[in-house]
């Protein structure tokens, strides 16, 4: 299956770096001359590491049980699926009773739900959000758009297979899946985590180069470091 439009992929004209991100020399108020390089100064460029599991299997199982019962979702909605996530906080579905909570910052979240189609522009933000999360972290692809592009199959600016760009642990099929399907997805994800099969974080670190190559093949204006924590 070909992802994105091949003609789009073949464009290799380099997009010039935005003005404010270029390295330059500035004079500070007290007359000092300093060189600043925004992409290096503000971010860390260290690649992600593969983190080993706990030494004892019983400890790892206990941790996995805790992780499965404390899924903190990053409140980041892409596409139309975001509207299906909101009812989960309401009395009708109430995902809180399953240990699912929403966190406002990627640092504290460990579950990223890509809720629908991802335009190339949004993919860039999704990658940054994913990389700022701390492992073990999980990705759920919600809706058929994340599986094969769905109704955006022949769109020129929308990715088709999310798994090429971020390590997906679980897909929830449908257009759109109802909140019940999402709840069922959480329960399936819990089973995966408890079985120790949700190791997307390490998969991402192991295949870092190929993930980056895939991401850069569609994101033409790559104006961030390769890895921003």
């Amino acid at each position, binding site marked *: 299956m070909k992802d994105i439009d091949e003609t789009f992929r073949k464009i290799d004209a380099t997009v010039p770096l935005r003005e404010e991100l270029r390295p330059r020399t500035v004079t500070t108020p007290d007359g000092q001359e300093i060189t600043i390089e925004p992409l290096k100064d503000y971010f860390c460029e260290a690649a992600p590491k593969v983190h080993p599991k706990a030494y004892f299997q019983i400890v790892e199982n206990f941790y996995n049980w*805790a992780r499965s019962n404390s899924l903190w979702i990053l409140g980041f909605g892409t596409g139309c699926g975001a509207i299906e996530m909101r009812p989960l906080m309401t*009395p009708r579905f109430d995902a809180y009773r399953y240990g699912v909570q929403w966190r406002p910052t990627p640092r504290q979240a460990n579950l990223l739900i890509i809720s629908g189609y991802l335009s190339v522009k949004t993919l860039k933000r999704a990658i940054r959000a994913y990389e700022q999360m*701390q492992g073990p972290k999980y990705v759920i692809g919600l809706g058929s758009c994340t599986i094969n592009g769905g109704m955006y199959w022949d769109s020129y600016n929308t990715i088709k297979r999310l798994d090429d760009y971020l390590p997906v642990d679980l897909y929830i099929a449908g257009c759109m899946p109802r909140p019940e399907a999402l709840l069922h997805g959480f329960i399936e994800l819990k089973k995966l985590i408890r079985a120790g099969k949700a190791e997307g974080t390490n998969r991402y670190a192991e295949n870092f180069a190929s993930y980056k190559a895939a991401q850069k093949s569609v994101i033409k204006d790559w104006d961030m470091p390769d890895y921003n924590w």
Partner: protein
Amino acid sequence: MSSFHWVQIPYALLTLFIVLNYGLIMTAVVQKIAARVGGRHGIPFWQNYIDLVKNFAQRSKITHGVMFYLGPVFRLAGGVGLLLFVPTIYGSTWAQNFSFAGDLVLALYFVFFGTLGMALGAGESGHPHAAIGVSRGLAQVTMAELPLALAVYAIAVQYHTLNITEIVAAQQGGLFHWTLFTNPLATVAAMFAFVGTMMRPPFDVVLAPQEIPIGPPTEYHSAYLALMQTNRAIFPVAKTVIYMNLFFGGASSWGEFAIKVFALYMVSAFIGVVHPRFRVEQSIRFFMKWGVPVGVLAILMV
């Protein structure tokens, strides 16, 4: 009581253990009550334990520098220190902790200690939301503490002591010996400070989850966050213990402790669910207008 015995250390740790578990369960129960108000089931009451284990079990963590490490440590030290220097159960031989003659002054200091540590740590994280949250927090907590300080002067004058145990002792002998009835103005002034520093809705602009997600702890994660969660369980209980001791007759058993702390905590929770959020300048003005005059009156009345 003034002499130190080694056995006080395990006793104090036992108190800390009880308060930690009480705090973890109580905050979850309060969240559950709030959920029931909204017609939801809410989180299970053991959810805080699981979250704590999960955060300790996160495999990766990053740092922004030394103060970033120390921020949560200071915060926890503020909570633990506050608890350790306040007699938790009146008349108990082992839950006296390390209280001494001037412990009330030290307690006032420890109430603020965590906020200061957090300001340094969150400041180093470099996140703009953290900086905004910290500046709001320092302004608001400083202002909210003022009525408490005035109330503490009032009751120090009233009871001629700065020793919390003696203040509790003076309130024994029935409901109407409580400071609540002997000095209602000081109690009211202190309750302004209580509601103002509990980080619950009318005064939660510091965290403001929907606005500056989520203020000072924005960059904190994994084990750092777990330390802060631990403090989130201990600190409100320790603070409530001070109010309970100063104004509501203290507690002579763990059962009385559990009921009084829960009731006091629910005061701020109730006020929280029915009031929208104040901006910082609004809350500062509120404390200036209502809290401080009541505190000054309390001193004048004594």
